[in-house]
């Protein structure tokens, strides 16, 4: 049992090389987030200022990404739109994961009647056509950033609940949970201290994917005219506006579509990578 001094430190981990496959999506997402946060200080033209004489201008030195149907600066609108898309895209799944995660964990841990009730609830939510639910929601409660976020948040509850329930089922049977119970830990303590930390890595990976799904969903809502209300730019709304002029000024729809595409792709890449890092447990010998 003696340990020689020459033995290398166990804590030293091999440095992971930052590959392009990770750097590109990470860089893009970081850029989008950075621009969305600092939009007010970038000296951008007002995203709502109309210049009807200069409408549908293709990209130029003055308007880097051109202007839209009402002569508004596209670059400015894309960046302010990123803010909208990110707020909805990050917050809605967060809401869904908090609620769904709690439901899923209780279902997986307590089993029995709690499980039955939770699974029933999840199935009802899943069976409901998602877009119709969101449409009804915003149509009745009114279109606002908060309501759209709330509607999409509710839609992400079932998926989050399923993932967390499945993981909880797997972890709750481990001996360390029994061990925690024998040292006198309460259910609450076991759930929060023993099981939850094990759920976080897979849930985070799944959350990244959910963010991209929600960004697209927000786009779909805006496209249908039930997303974020008009003067406030959002990517989905821009694509919807640009659709009218697809033949004469295709950039008005294609640029926001491309930005959304790259962002969603990047998020999916990151989600997959995080999942690969946490999923096949490297320590499981």
């Amino acid at each position, binding site marked *: *049992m*003696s*340990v020689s001094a020459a033995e290398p430190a*166990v*804590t030293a981990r091999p440095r992971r090389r930052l590959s392009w496959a990770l750097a590109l999506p990470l860089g893009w997402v970081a850029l989008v987030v950075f621009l969305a946060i600092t939009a007010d200080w970038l000296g951008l033209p007002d995203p709502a200022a109309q210049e009807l004489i200069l409408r549908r201008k293709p990209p130029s030195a003055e308007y880097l990404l051109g202007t839209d149907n009402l002569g508004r600066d596209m670059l400015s609108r894309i960046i302010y739109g990123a803010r909208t898309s990110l707020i909805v895209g990050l917050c809605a799944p967060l809401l869904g994961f908090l609620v769904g995660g709690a439901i899923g964990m209780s279902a997986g841990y307590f*089993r*029995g009647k709690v499980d039955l009730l939770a699974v029933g609830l999840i199935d009802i939510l899943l069976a409901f056509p998602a877009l119709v639910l969101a449409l009804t929601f915003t149509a009745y409660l009114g279109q606002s950033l908060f309501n759209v976020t709330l509607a999409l948040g509710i839609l992400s509850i079932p998926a989050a609940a399923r993932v967390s329930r499945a993981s909880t089922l797997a972890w709750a049977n*481990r*001996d*360390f949970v*029994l*061990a*925690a*119970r*024998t*040292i*006198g*830990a*309460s259910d609450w*303590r076991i759930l929060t*201290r*023993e099981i939850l*930390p*094990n759920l976080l890595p897979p849930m985070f990976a799944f959350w990244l994917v959910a963010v991209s799904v929600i960004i697209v969903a927000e786009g779909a809502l805006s496209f249908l005219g039930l997303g974020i209300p008009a003067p406030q730019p959002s990517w989905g709304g821009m694509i919807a506006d640009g659709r009218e002029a697809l033949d004469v000024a295709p950039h008005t729809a294609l640029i926001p579509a491309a930005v959304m595409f790259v962002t969603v792709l990047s998020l999916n890449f990151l989600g997959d990578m995080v999942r690969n890092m946490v999923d096949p*447990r*490297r*320590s*499981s*010998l």
Partner: protein
Amino acid sequence: MNEGPLLSVRDARVSFATARGALRAVDGVTFDLHKGRTLGIVGESGSGKSVLVRSLIGLVGADSGAEVGGQVLLEGQDLRTLPGARLRTLLGRDIGIVFQDPMTSLNPVMKIGRQIGEGLQLNRGLDRAAAGRRAAELLAEVGIPEPERRARQYPHELSGGMRQRVAIAIAIACEPKLLIADEPTTALDVTVQRQILDLLQREQRQRAMAMILITHDLGVAAGRADDIMVMYAGRAVEMAATRALFRAPRMPYTEALLRSLPRLTDVAHTRLAAIPGRPPDLARRGGGCAFAPRCRYRSARCDAEQPVLTRDGPHGFACFNPVGAGA
């Protein structure tokens, strides 16, 4: 022995409802365990030894679909009738468990020091810093070098043997009166098994704990247990002081188990005496002795009637045709 037993188990029963009817995993087991003594529970896979012990402390119960019966007294208090919160405090303070596989008995995302300190914080009211210091002391005690550094590591950074040492440190952290070791060496390399058993024995003696050592390996139980209970198909079939059991087993099953062990004195390439047949299906048991179909001494009575554990002095066995009865 001027006091009563620490743990007293009376007619413990556990049955699971299955699609094919009730499966009686534990069927009327009775034993006493005194302070400072080690009881070895020996039996093959599925003989009910783990279920028995887990049911004693409420880890197998109604919420896992099991029906539990009998009486379990820890220092005269019936664990089966205690309300949940009281039972938890009692378990935390008085009973420690070491599980079979340290891969699954440690939380992979919690630092080792925290896992050891958790019980101390919960049951002994230590603050975080004090619990951390005590955790490092415990790590040193169970033979882990550089305890301060190890306490800050995660389970995957340790070897299997080290992990089992950590599991032992967790189990003994709160100075329990009873230590339960559920096949503590089964998942480990042979070279490490001995070290872990030595460690368990040393800690048990130092702290004058009672210990239940569950194993399927008679050899493991031989050197470590004061008494041995042999289980077969959910029943205790023989119970005796270790030496008496090895010198003169009375139950044919125990005899067969002993015969199946390799001996150094055997001529090379001697075949091991395997026990023919298989353990019975617990969901469809007949009325007779569960071991009868595999038994060399089987008689007509064995198929008709179930033998109960009878005592011949300190030696208990459940058999109509015990070995060495001159029959």
